[in-house]
């Protein structure tokens, strides 16, 4: 890894955060995490107020909103036409896209300690106010949660690359799980398919400390279809397209 490559990654990380939209999104993630933790402290059964539960629930707003950051990392380059300068400074486009991918991975992984901190605060307050859950957490759960965040944010990035349009990518991203639920409810034959392709079902086991071999297989299949495929197609699309 040379210096140039590091610079590109730093640039992409900075671009993720230095606009008002980026700041708002991070703020929204922080606020909703705090809200969820607070609700848990106030209303959850004291025995359920464990560090692990706090952590899993604190991870959910991140999983919901961080993919939007992934989408915007790519699509704003087109909607604001800053791609013109980005690719003039680094004409090897896959290098820029790879840097965006790494920046997204860093954001996903960095969200885990943030969720842990929110969960710790929640657990501490709960313990002081009569909670009996304690500090138990399985190490595997933390690793799985990191993978969960990575899958979600890379999916956002991939949708952004493939569609190059912020609202369309975000709407599709948010609609997809609902579509599976609705279709699965209406069409009987889709239900077994959903077990393999509905990412919101296949990633569910990652929020528990135990994942079976079958669950891994289903997860891998759905990730290939919804994350890797659009990622590769989107990269190819951007490589070939004229920037205007």
């Amino acid at each position, binding site marked *: 890894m040379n210096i*140039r490559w590091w610079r590109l990654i*730093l640039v992409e990380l900075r671009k993720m955060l230095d*606009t008002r939209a980026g700041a708002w999104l991070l703020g929204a993630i922080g606020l909703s995490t705090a809200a969820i933790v607070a609700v848990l402290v106030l209303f959850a059964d004291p025995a359920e107020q464990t560090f692990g539960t706090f952590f899993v629930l604190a991870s959910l707003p991140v999983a919901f909103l961080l993919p939007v950051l992934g989408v915007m990392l790519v699509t704003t380059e087109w909607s604001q036409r800053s791609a*013109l*300068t980005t*690719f*003039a*400074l680094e*004409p090897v486009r896959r290098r820029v896209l790879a840097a965006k991918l790494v920046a997204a991975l860093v954001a996903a992984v960095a969200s885990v300690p943030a969720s842990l901190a929110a969960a710790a605060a929640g657990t501490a307050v709960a313990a002081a106010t009569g909670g009996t859950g304690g500090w138990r957490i399985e190490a595997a759960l933390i690793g799985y949660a990191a993978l969960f965040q990575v899958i979600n944010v890379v999916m956002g990035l991939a949708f952004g690359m493939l569609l190059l349009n912020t609202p369309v990518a975000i709407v599709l991203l948010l609609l997809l799980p609902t579509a599976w639920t609705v279709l699965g409810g209406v069409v009987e034959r889709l239900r077994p398919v959903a077990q393999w392709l509905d990412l919101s079902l296949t990633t569910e086991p990652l929020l528990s400390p135990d994942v079976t071999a079958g669950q891994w297989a289903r997860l891998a299949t759905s990730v290939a279809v919804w994350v890797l495929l659009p990622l590769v197609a989107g990269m190819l699309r951007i490589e070939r397209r004229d920037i*205007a």
Partner: protein
Amino acid sequence: MIEVRNITKRYGRQLAVDDVSFSCAAGTVTGFLGPNGAGKSTTLRMICGLATASAGTATVGGLPYRRLRDPGRVVGVLLDAAAMHPGRTGRETLTVAALAMGVSRARVGELLDLVGLNRAAAGRRVRAYSLGMRQRLGLAHALLGEPQVLILDEPANGLDPEGIFWMRGLLRDFADRGGTVLLSSHLLREVEAVADRLVVIGGGRVVAAGDKDELLAGDGGTLVRARDQQALRAALDRAGHQVGTVDGRLLVSAPPETVGEVAAAAGAVLLELRPADTGGLEQMFLALTAGESVREAVK
């Protein structure tokens, strides 16, 4: 420094750029002229590797743009001042670019000063910038990596007269220190004052290219008007000069000094005597800009 060879861009059946060739040497400013939609921006984007040429090649410093190592340190590019993220401040826009190019942060402040964006302006988001301010920021962005080449697409758009004057001085100075400048415009007047060479395109093809002075002088000749037009015309005819009429003036195929001598010898009282300098190029330019129907009507 910039070498464009037979570059062509085809969109479906339409030829946006048709076999365009030209080169820009170090130490010169080249004006890339043409009406809107002539293919200027497409050509510049192909040079910068942002659009793929259907045929032909373009190199900067001997290399295709996409093979330049750290292009920001070699070529300063401003293709569209409007294409900046409106949610970043001016200073942040430059800071991100400085980070990408690996130049020191101190240069950001220097360039903001150079292009006349003060602390307050630099701290505002680009959304609040006028087009003129964006052009200044874009120019700062292009100069950030201390490049040897500048490629600027319509940099004077949105600048006030004072700003245009300032930019001319900056570009002239850049070229005089050995830099290469390629700037496009749809206004002949805008580049006339700063360019050494002109490349004029219309409908995707180069219609004129060369040294500015030669092009502008061209076969312009001299325009002259006398109190007794008939007598002067007769005298010029006798002296063996080609004489035509343009707008009530005589267009003579000789330099002003010669025409003045003939007039003095004939005792003609002159009301006007000047080189028909920009006539040729300007008329061609007007013809390019005017639609086909207008051209028909003029005939």
